[in-house]
């Protein structure tokens, strides 16, 4: 990186197009213009707050939010469901993981209004009172947590993973939990915890 010319190899434009942001930004602009031109469909909600009904842990929950509010923000800012955390806020770290309609999702990347009609499993619904779900118990047993901020998301991701892969190998775990990040570095414990939880859940009632 000594001369001006060298920088051409790593220009901002190159960097941005390389990572796909450029295309995304252009696309957004087009969509906005098209949306402005198109007539509003009859069932449009917003832009102001609109009442919606979410099904959280099997129970209907009414909340009034603007259509742009994410499922994560609806849970945290409007419903006191704070197990899911906001860390990256852009669908990367998985601290906000919930299971929606049986699928593991980043709740920061789902709009609350789009989450209607599907059952949303959150960590608050895993076990009642002071009980621990087998996944949570396995996380405790293997010290798969330090600061704990990523832990709720990891527990939900592990639950979703085990639901789909009841007999995982260690290699499966390493790939299957790759969508969540931990800054304290608790992965060694998480690997063991997920294997143990899978065994527990297979043997029992909580599968």
């Amino acid at each position, binding site marked *: 990186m000594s001369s001006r010319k060298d920088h051409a190899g790593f220009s901002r434009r190159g960097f941005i197009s390389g990572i796909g942001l450029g295309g995304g930004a252009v696309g957004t602009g087009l969509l906005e213009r098209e949306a402005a031109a198109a007539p509003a469909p009859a069932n449009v909600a917003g832009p102001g707050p609109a009442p919606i009904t979410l099904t959280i842990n099997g129970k209907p929950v009414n909340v009034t939010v603007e259509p742009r509010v994410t499922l994560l923000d609806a849970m945290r800012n409007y419903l006191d469901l704070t197990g899911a955390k906001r860390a990256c806020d852009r669908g990367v770290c998985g601290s906000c993981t919930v299971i929606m309609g049986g699928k593991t999702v980043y709740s920061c990347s789902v709009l609350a209004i789009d989450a209607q009609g599907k059952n949303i499993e959150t960590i608050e619904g895993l076990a009642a009172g002071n009980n621990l779900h087998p996944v949570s118990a396995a996380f405790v047993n293997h010290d798969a947590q330090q600061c704990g901020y990523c832990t709720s998301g990891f527990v939900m991701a592990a639950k979703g993973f085990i639901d789909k892969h009841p007999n995982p190998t260690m290699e499966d775990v390493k790939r299957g939990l790759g969508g*969540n990040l931990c800054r304290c570095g608790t992965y060694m414990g998480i690997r063991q915890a997920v294997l143990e939880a899978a065994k527990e859940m297979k043997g029992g009632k909580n599968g």
Partner: protein
Amino acid sequence: MANTPDYNWPPMEKRRIIGKPYKRVDGPQKASGRAKYSSDLRPKDLLFGVYLTCPHAHARVTSIDTSGAEKTAGVKAVHVVSPAGTEIQWAGTEIAAVAATTEEIARDAVRKIKVDYEVLPHMVKEDDLGKAGARAKAAGESVKGDPDKAFQEAEAVSEGQYGIPVVTHCCLETHGMVIQWQGDQVSLFPSTQDVTHYAGSLAPNIKVPIANIHVKQDHIGGGFGSKFGPESWDQVGADLSKKAGGRPVKLFLDRATEQAIAGNRPSAFAKIRIAGKKDGTVTGWQSESWATGGFTGGGSPPLPYIIDTIPNQRLHHTSVSVNAGSSRAWRAPNNQQASYLTCSALEDFAAKIGMDPMEVFDKNVAYAPKARVETYRYQLQKAAEIADWKKLWHPRGQGGTGVVKRGLGLGFGTWGGGGHQSQCRTTIHPDGSVLVEIGTQDLGTGTRTIIVQVAAETLGLPLGAIKLAIGTNDLPPDSASGGSTTVGGVSSSTRKSSMNALAKLFEAAAPALGAQPEQLEAVDGHIRVKDNPSKSLTWQAACRKLGVTKISEMGENQQRNPMGLNTSGVAGIQIADVSVDTETGLVKINRYVAVQDCGMVINPRLAESVCYGAIIMGIGTALFEERVMDEQTGRMLNPDMEFYKLAGINDIGEIVVHLDIRPENDKRGVVGLGEPPAIAICAAVGNAVANAIGVRVPNIPMTPDRVLAALEGRNA
């Protein structure tokens, strides 16, 4: 009490609770999502605070108009941080903040704030010192011995240039707090590594008496040295709350701002020459290093690291000011950088003379502080054994004929970790219940658990019998959790307060046992006579002798006089075993071995977790993490977690931690472990990559492009 209790730790073989791998006591809360972090709080009438930040790396605010934000329905308060005339020195600097009834309204409102800037020239990159011009401040030369002669007479001279970039703390919980300023009282829920001193530092800035500021934090979502505080946002939040008529305000940074301004580790670059003999003995060291820690410069890796008594040295360091967010303490400040620079140069010297670096390191740790030379030699041997060095190591570049080359590399580290100033109160109630109180914080290192273990051990009770209070500023004062000082501090203060309380209980129970207080001991839920265990009272029965008056005793760890309960100074040797794909440039960790010096370990499970965590964080920095600055705009290009990459669960290989728990280490008392194992990773990984592919990849992180550039002989 005539006699001062014997505070010494019980001998290894007599411990029932200390040294045992108990599960962390707050584990169930965290693993069930029930643990409440400050960023989870939503008190009644909460307002959401959002910042407007500066898009320019260097600019002067010429005008600011907040009327649009003020007129927005739902906005309850607006605070200008950088009024007209303010010179901004890095992108992401706070300009103004808004508090509104919803986060959405607050975000809309900050967009309505009109700011005009006079944009000024900036400099954001420091990797090329030649371009730094007036922004570089040389610290002057420091010479020891006769380096010129050493280099002239050397049998071999090696040289190289190495660099380690700015990385960010990237705490998952961003910086911020919930704050309520109502009347003359302030309630503050921060995300901090220093509960005890938070109010005292904030008080003069908001002109509220310390006694009226109530700080509470149950859990913190990562700190790593970046969250001492209080910060500018505490003042801003306080002002917003006051302006909004005393409604609570939540003001946490968004991810982009967190990455840009809320903490990073200084970079370090160096050209290093080593002179030495063909038997591996280093005789001379010469380094020209430079670094940045942001606008005020900073970053000064102690070179040569650990082997600092090399007889002939010439050192020259330059601090570079850039228009980017300021550095903060980052898990062993300056040590990772120094370890990387030193160990890389040492390994290059070994390659130059064709010697096994294990032997070269072994020889030259003679230049380490005397007290630790033998420790390093022991650790080198132990690490080599665990990593199978003899079998797997090969001379540089002889990693086989296949596309994927395997290599091993070494790194070393050292740290203090003595206990900080800490006070603890142990209260024994007449009904037998026990309360332990310290104004400390648990960063996820297991502080709660080890306090409870020490109290339970001392009082002869099970873990569950101890109730613990931490995390508020009305508790006995502790210190900041930084420098790996917490475990030594809180374990020693807890030991002392609990021994003091127990001595009082012995006084109350002695008459009923027909013995003198000093003849008693607390074991397995009983108070009994030492040489006649049949004479005993249950804990409850003994506590009933207190009548209606509880025992409440203090204990203090004095940093300067830890009385043998804790100590400072640990060494560590680590070995990375990597595979490098020479076609794609991808580096994969196969195995990572850490031999970690430690003192008395209170909980081996938690100690091991901390070591794993430190190593995993280090692997992230060695392979992925880098703050990428854009010369054109002056902004950070990756202020997110997609392109600022942390290591994931499949990126870390197999990690083997060997805690050196031996009686001679145990005797030293407690030593902190948060930082020591986080130091040597870049060094070990960098050396392993060089060993695998036969050429040095000069700059961390070891990304595929850098590896390929090095393989092609390009300057990476």
